[in-house]
């Protein structure tokens, strides 16, 4: 019974993930004084991709074919670690925040390999840049998890998933996590998801050779990752009690608040994307260095008990 | 009687030290060996050891006659310059030899193991011969001087052994004689070869091989 509820919640989470991406694009377009595509456009894109046939490069090997499944399953496994709507139903026995990070690394590893697999320059470039950015992001995440640990006493995601006081440490950690989320979800100023120029791509370059259903899986996986990151930021600065409820109305209100927080973060991301220009790759090291400093500040605040 | 022989050994050793040319050195060595032969006879009579008589005879044959003859032959055959090549001039060498004599004397007095005065003197002279042999090897440039120095050291050790312990075992003595004889022959051959290759037997020139 519990597993059934878990699977249902997982499906609900997955269905809402593309909507988030569509929402961000819509907000960006409004800020650019355009009408832009509809909010449901990601769903239409996925449907289109599922109906198309694939073109596979002749230099590709089995790694190219296996990667979409690995990335998809790693994103879903990571989402099982966070409480999806009802508190007791995350698979917390499987791992904690650190395990989440390593599961993301699994997906990224295979994606980088498949990008090299096709033997083109763009894939190699995207792979190289992605590994550069991700390796610099790791110490930042470690320090954020560290400051959360000092504050809440555990790296288990459920530890900060209840109602807790918002301290200075939480705010700074959330700010650092915001920077990390921008880097991990390939948003401006680290990477531009809307670019068509291969030489400016990081994440898109790794997906360049994919088409059809494989591409749909990879897009889906990136939407889910995005949703997970935004949830984590939201949980730290807008805590919500995820314990049981007593009436349907209460449950409905609560669900609304759950989703609204994530959309607030999405609006913030959209604002950042529109106002800031994309940085040169080597400046990303400074960007992430600043995030590292924020992480250290968060840790110091947690030590001081602030 | 014994005193005269010992003085003879001493004087011939001094003669060796001040020798400037090869024949002089070899002749002094022959005289030293002769006096050593006489000394051995005296000791043999004192200790009443028949073996020592034989050893004395060997000394006469080999060290007094054969070896100087061999060395003279080497010099004539190689037609090398008969100059010994001195690092330290004869006067200074004599001074050093006198110092060595004093040193050896003080050393053997300090040792305090001997019964009578004669034994102390013989020990001192024997030790002095060893030091002079080493000194000859250091302060003369040619290979021949090294050979002679070695032989003098061997003489000194022989005298030392005869004094302190009444001679070494018989077979050891025979073996040593044989070794000395053979080594002189070999060294002579080497000197001949060295001269043929380098047209001189100046050992000091080996420093040119320094890396």
């Amino acid at each position, binding site marked *: 019974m519990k597993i059934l509820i878990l699977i249902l919640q997982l499906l609900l989470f997955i269905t809402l993930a593309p909507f988030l991406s569509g929402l961000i694009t819509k907000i960006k377009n409004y800020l650019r004084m355009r009408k832009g595509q509809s909010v449901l456009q990601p769903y239409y894109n996925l449907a289109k991709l*599922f*109906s198309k046939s*694939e*073109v*596979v*490069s*002749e230099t590709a090997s*089995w*790694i190219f074919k296996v990667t979409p*499944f690995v990335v*998809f*399953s790693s994103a879903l496994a990571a989402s*099982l670690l966070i409480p999806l709507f009802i508190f007791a139903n995350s*698979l917390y*026995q*499987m791992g904690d925040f650190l*395990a989440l990070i*390593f599961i993301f690394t699994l997906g990224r*590893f295979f994606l*980088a*390999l498949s990008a*090299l*697999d096709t*033997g*083109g*320059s763009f894939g*190699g470039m995207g*792979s*190289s840049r992605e590994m*550069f950015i*991700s*390796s610099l*992001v*790791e110490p930042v995440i*470690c*320090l954020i998890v560290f400051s959360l*640990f000092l504050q809440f*006493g555990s790296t*288990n995601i459920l530890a900060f998933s209840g109602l807790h006081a918002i301290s200075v440490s939480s705010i700074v950690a959330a700010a650092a996590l915001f920077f990390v989320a921008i880097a991990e979800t390939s948003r401006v100023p680290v990477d531009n998801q809307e670019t068509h120029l291969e030489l400016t791509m990081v994440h898109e370059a790794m997906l*360049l050779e994919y088409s*059809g*259903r494989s591409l749909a899986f990879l897009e889906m996986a990136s939407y889910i990752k995005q949703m997970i990151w935004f949830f984590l930021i939201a949980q730290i600065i807008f805590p919500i009690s995820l314990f049981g409820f007593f009436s349907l109305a209460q449950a409905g209100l609560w669900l609304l608040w759950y989703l609204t927080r994530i959309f607030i973060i999405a609006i913030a991301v959209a604002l950042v994307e529109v106002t800031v220009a994309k940085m040169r*790759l080597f400046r990303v090291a400074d960007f992430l260095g600043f995030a*590292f400093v924020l992480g*250290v500040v968060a840790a*110091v605040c947690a*030590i001081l008990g602030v | 009687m014994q005193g005269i022989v010992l003085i003879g050994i001493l004087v011939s050793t001094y003669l060796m030290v001040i020798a400037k040319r090869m024949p002089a050195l070899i002749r002094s060595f022959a005289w030293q060996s002769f006096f050593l032969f006489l000394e051995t006879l005296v000791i043999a009579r004192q200790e009443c050891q028949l073996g020592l008589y034989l050893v004395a005879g060997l000394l006469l044959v080999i060290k007094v006659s054969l070896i100087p003859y061999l060395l003279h032959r080497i010099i004539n055959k190689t037609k090398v310059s008969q100059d010994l090549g001195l*690092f330290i001039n004869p006067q200074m060498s004599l001074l050093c030899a006198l110092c060595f004599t004093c040193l050896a004397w003080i050393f053997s007095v*300090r040792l305090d193991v001997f019964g009578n005065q004669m034994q102390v003197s013989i020990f001192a002279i024997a030790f002095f011969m060893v*030091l002079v042999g*080493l*000194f000859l090897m*250091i*302060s003369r440039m040619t290979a021949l001087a090294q050979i002679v120095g070695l032989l003098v050291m061997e003489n000194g050790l022989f005298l030392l052994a005869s004094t302190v312990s009444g001679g070494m075992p018989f077979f050891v003595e025979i073996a040593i004689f044989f070794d000395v004889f053979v080594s002189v022959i070999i060294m002579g051959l080497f000197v001949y070869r060295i001269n043929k290759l380098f047209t001189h037997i100046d*050992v*000091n020139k*080996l*420093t040119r*091989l*320094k890396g």
Partner: protein
Amino acid sequence: MTNILPKQIFLFDPLSLFFLAVILIVSLPSAVYSFGYLKEYSSRKIILAWFLLFAFVLSMALVVSVGNALVFLVAWEIMSLVSYFLVVFDTTHEKSIKAGMIYIVMTHIGTAFLIAAFMILHNYAHSFDFTAIKNASFMIPQGTKNIIFLLFLVGFGTKAGIVPLHIWLPYAHPQAPSHISSIMSGVMIKTAIYGIIRFVIFILGVNSSWWGILILILAVITCLVGIIYALMERDIKRLLAYSSVENIGIILLGVGLAMYFYSKNMPFLAVFSLIAGLYHLVNHAIFKGLLFLCAGSVYKATGVRDIEKLGGLIKKMPQTAVYFLIGAMAISALPPLNGFVSEWLVLQAFFLGAFHAAGGAKLFLGICAGMLALTSGLAAACFVKAFGITFLAKSRSNYAVNAKEVSLSMKLGMLILSLLTIAFGLAATSIIKLLTRVAGLSTGIDISNMKFSLNNFILKPQAASNIYLSTPLLTLVLILLALAGFVIYMSFGREKTRIYKTWDCGYYKLDSRNEYSATAFTKPLRIAFSFFLLPYRKTQKIRETFYHVRSFTYETHTTKVFKKYIYDPLIALVFKSAKSMRRIQPGSIHLYLGYIFVTLLLLLIFMQKF
């Protein structure tokens, strides 16, 4: 000196047995592998190789199981000498001889420090037996203990490869035959860790906290230096050697933490950190052994070690590619393999320790944990490069085009280690139960109440807080979700997949020269770390006329910082002092005889004093 000859030489306690198990786990598959690897040598050389291998494994087993310091030193020396012969085994390459020279000099410098430490210990204990020294260690004053600790650290650090004593590793490990490299990198450098645990923690007893902090700082530096140099390498075996340096750093992080917590009287955390360090030790032995065997297979099949000449080997050597992928995944700490579990444990040790430690130490431990995370990310980047450039895409040269899959015995060796990699990841709880006993003995802490797992599948570091990790569950979930994805994929009907060329932006004559190269792959990191790598470039243009450039050569190098600033000046100093001492040897016989003469005279004159 009455107790030189020991009554009982061997000491089989859990620590020795653990290390013996590690030795066997790596040596047996390597021995199986060497059947196929040595096939093309002359039969005399094969017999020599087998004899040396046997002697090597035996000497290492002796090192970890003796209980007497003198026998330990003898076994240590035998191990160093036999491994030297193995390093210079391929005497046709003059690089082997140079590598052997550097190795033997460094290892003997380390052994000299060890001998000094043992002499000091003998002075207090009047015996070479371990139990006697342990009992006498209470009497040793703190200052002497500090000196002994530093001597042991330098002595064992030379063998383990702690920065800056690591320079022999990148020379020696690539030149040795591949099965020997795997044993050297997998096991021999771990015997140094055994030495540190046995002598510093077990025998000497840690009671100052700066020991643990010093080891932590050295370990963090070792990790970062190791992985940054590994990223810049294009020789596959040297890349693996630098990566071994990095992993020794991670193991030392666990050991250093254990020492720090022990000195601060936090027994639970000390045992936990030591378990994390030991777990990473055995994991690294397995997956580094596997990676070296795979690198050896690649070298045997293609004849080159330079990955920029390879590529596309996944189609020519499919099984080797799978084993290398498993090894690369394990070393990049990807779930659910063994590397992930041990790195997770080390990070948890940092976090838990920081929670219970005092103020300043909290931040220090946090930043060390951040540096560990950085090296983990860089290691993933390094092995994406290593696997991707070597095996994927098109062949970059003829060496790779003519590659063939290797023989059965080599595949068998690699298969055994791959299975062990997966098994050590899934069976984490059982391994930790075994390691708890080892750690308990080494630190002398009572472990009867310590439980590190909930049941047979879930790891739970501490009873109070609720942190869990379950690799079997994770594997199950990943496989199920991947299958679900596959089912969804297939449910949309079997469409035909068209095979076509890679996207080439409209140019039609793209070939393997358009692929990304290894140097290019890590260029962003080379620029990010340029303050340490000090890269420089050399270019040369040859022109026929001003407008017509006939050739343009471009070379980029990274400065070998340790060689340039530490070792070269030191060696120059040694040579200078030797040259000045040579003046007493002018080559004149007379002078030498004069030395003897003067000594004799002096002895005579001053005879009374003697």
